[in-house]
C-alpha cells in the first residue's frame, strides 16, 4: 500500500520537556489508521504538527511524497483536514453553517477566489447547501438550523466531523470524535470513514475507545512516551503483550 501521508522523524520539545521523541508514521491510500495511547502520550501533539497548528522541533510531514509546510489553512487546502479534541466551533452559527465553513478549503484557495466569492455573495448564493445537508445526514447530524451554542456536545463533535469531511480531504484526522456522540452518530461517522476508505482517502483516527477504533481501523499505532511503541494489524496489536502493557497497563 503506497503512503498517502508520511511523518518522518517527527520530534517535539517544549522547553526542556519532550512531548514527542521520534515518530515515523504512515497512512496509506484507502487506509484507516487507529492512533491510540494513554493521556499525554503525544497523540494530539502529533495531529497538531501534521495539521500545522504546532511546529515540530524536527522532522517533516509528507503528503503524496511532497513535504507540506506552512499554516494550517495552507495544509487544509493541500488536502489535510482535522477535528479537535475539544470542538472548535462558532456557537453563533447554525450547525449547517459551521459545517459549510469547511468548503473554504476548496472554494477560497487563493485571494482571487476570495474576491470572487465576495463579489458573488451579494448577488447569488453559490454555496452548495444541498451537498452540505446530504453530508450531515450521512453522519447522523440533523435539524441543521439549530444554533451551535444550543446543541449537545455530541452534535458539536458531529458538526466538526462534518466540517472536516466536507473539505473532501486526502487525509482526515479525527481527534477523539466519539465521546458524547450517540449510537446513530457513531454509526454515521464510521460509515463516512468507510466511504472515505473506499474512495482511496486516508484516515487517522484517535480515540480512547479501543473497541470502536479496532472495529474500523486497518492498522493500529500505539504511542507511548513520545514514540511509537507498537504498530501493525489490529488483531496482532490487540493480542500483543507490549500493547497491553504500555497502553492498558496490564502485562
Amino acid at each position, binding site marked *: 500500500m503506497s503512503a498517502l501521508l508520511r511523518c518522518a522523524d517527527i520530534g517535539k520539545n517544549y522547553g526542556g520537556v519532550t512531548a514527542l521523541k521520534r515518530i515515523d508514521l504512515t497512512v496509506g491510500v484507502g487506509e484507516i489508521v487507529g492512533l491510540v495511547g494513554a493521556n499525554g502520550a503525544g497523540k494530539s501533539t502529533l495531529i497538531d504538527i501534521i*495539521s*500545522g*497548528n504546532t511546529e515540530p522541533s524536527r522532522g517533516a510531514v509528507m503528503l503524496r511524497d511532497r513535504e507540506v509546510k506552512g499554516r*494550517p*489553512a495552507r495544509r*487544509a487546502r493541500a488536502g489535510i483536514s*482535522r477535528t*479537535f479534541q475539544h470542538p*472548535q*466551533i*462558532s*456557537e*453563533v*452559527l447554525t450547525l*449547517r*453553517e*459551521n459545517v*459549510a*465553513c*469547511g*468548503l*473554504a*478549503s476548496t*472554494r*477560497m*484557495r487563493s*485571494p482571487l477566489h*476570495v*474576491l470572487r*466569492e*465576495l463579489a*458573488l*455573495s*451579494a448577488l447569488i*448564493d*453559490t*454555496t452548495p*447547501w*444541498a451537498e452540505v*445537508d446530504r453530508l450531515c*445526514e450521512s453522519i*447522523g447530524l*440533523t435539524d*441543521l*438550523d439549530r444554533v451551535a451554542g444550543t446543541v449537545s456536545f455530541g452534535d458539536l463533535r458531529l458538526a466538526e466531523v462534518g*466540517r*472536516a469531511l466536507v*473539505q473532501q480531504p486526502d487525509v482526515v484526522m479525527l481527534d477523539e470524535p466519539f465521546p458524547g456522540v450517540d*449510537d*446513530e452518530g457513531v*454509526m454515521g461517522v*464510521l460509515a463516512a470513514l468507510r466511504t472515505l476508505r473506499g474512495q482511496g482517502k486516508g484516515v487517522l483516527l484517535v480515540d480512547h475507545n*479501543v*473497541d*470502536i477504533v*479496532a472495529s474500523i481501523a486497518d492498522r493500529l499505532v500505539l504511542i507511548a512516551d513520545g514514540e511509537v511503541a507498537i504498530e501493525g494489524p489490529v488483531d496482532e496489536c*490487540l493480542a500483543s503483550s507490549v500493547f*497491553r502493557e504500555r497502553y*492498558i497497563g*496490564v502485562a
Partner: protein
Amino acid sequence: MTITVTPARTDRMEVPPRSRGRRDTTLLPAVFFLVAFVALYFGWALAESYHLDIAMTFTMFSLLALGMYTPLFLGGQIDLAYNAYLAAGAYAVAIIANRTDIPLVLAIPIGAAVAATMALVLGLVTSHLTGFHLALVTLLAGTAAYRWISSTGAGLTGGASGIGGIPRLDLLGIEFGREQLVAAGLIAVWLVAFALSRFRRSLPGLAVRLNRASTPAAEVSGIPTTSIRLVSLAMGAAIGSLGGVFVALMNQFILADSYAPEIVFLALFLPLLGGISTPWGAVIGAGLLCFLNEASAFIEGPGPLVFGGASLAILILLPGGLIGVVALGWSAARSRMRKEDKL
C-alpha cells in the same frame, strides 16, 4: 485479557428526516426597508428642506455604522479609525472638485480606494494586536489623521477652515441637487445593508464569523484568515468613506472638525442599539440617533444626554437591540399560533 469489539447498536437507527434546506431570510427585511425608505423619502424628507439635512445625517451615520459592522460585529476586529475613512471620502470629493480635472463622480471609487488602502495598511501594521491594544492604536491612527487634515493650513486639505466650492454632481446630464442626493444616499444605504445581509450568510461571511469564534477552526477549514481579515477591514473602510462622499456633495463644503474621532464613538453604538444580528440593525440605530436628536431638541433637553440615557437603557434592557425585541415578539407569536393549531 479479552478485548471485545462491540459495534454500535443499529436497531435504533432511523433514517433522519430530509432537511428542509436553508431558508433565505434576507429578502423580507430588504422589502420592509425598501418600503420604509420610499415612504420616508416621499412622505417626509421632501416635505421640508430641513428634513433633507436630517435624512442626509441618517445616510452618513448608516453608512458609517454599516462600514463598522463587518470587521467589528462579524469579525471581532475593533478599528476606531473610521473618522479617517469618512474623511477620505469627503476629502476625495473636495480635492478632486477643486484641484483636479477628474470627473467628480470618480471621487466615489477614489475615496473608497483611499479609505480601503488606509485600512489595509493599518490592518497589516496591527496584525499582531488584539483587543485593548488594537483599539488604542487604531484610535491613535484616527486622531493622527484628524490632526493632519486640520493642521495642514492652506495645503492639500485646507486646514481647519476646510474646502468649499464643491459643485453639484452632474451624472449623465442629471444634476444631483439636495433631493437627488438624499435619494441616492438612501439607495446606497439600502444596497449596502442588503448586500451585507447576503454577505453575512455567504461563505466569506461565515469565514469571517468562524475566524472570530476560533482562529484554529478557521485555519483548519482552509480559510485564509489573514486575507479575510484584511478584506473585511478594507470593505468596512470603503463603505464608511461613502458617508463622507455624500455629506461633502450635499453640503458643498467640508470642515476638518466634522471628522474628529468623537464621531466614531457615536457610530459604534448604532449597531448595538438596532441589533447586531443583522446589518439592518445599524440602519435602525442610525434612525434612532436622528430621531432622538430631534426629539431632544423638542423637549429642550441636552441632546447628547438624552441620546446617552436612551442608549444606556436600550443596551441594558434590550441586549439584542430593537431588532431583538421584534424577533422575540415574532417568535412568541409563532409559538402561540402553533399551540392554537394543535388545539
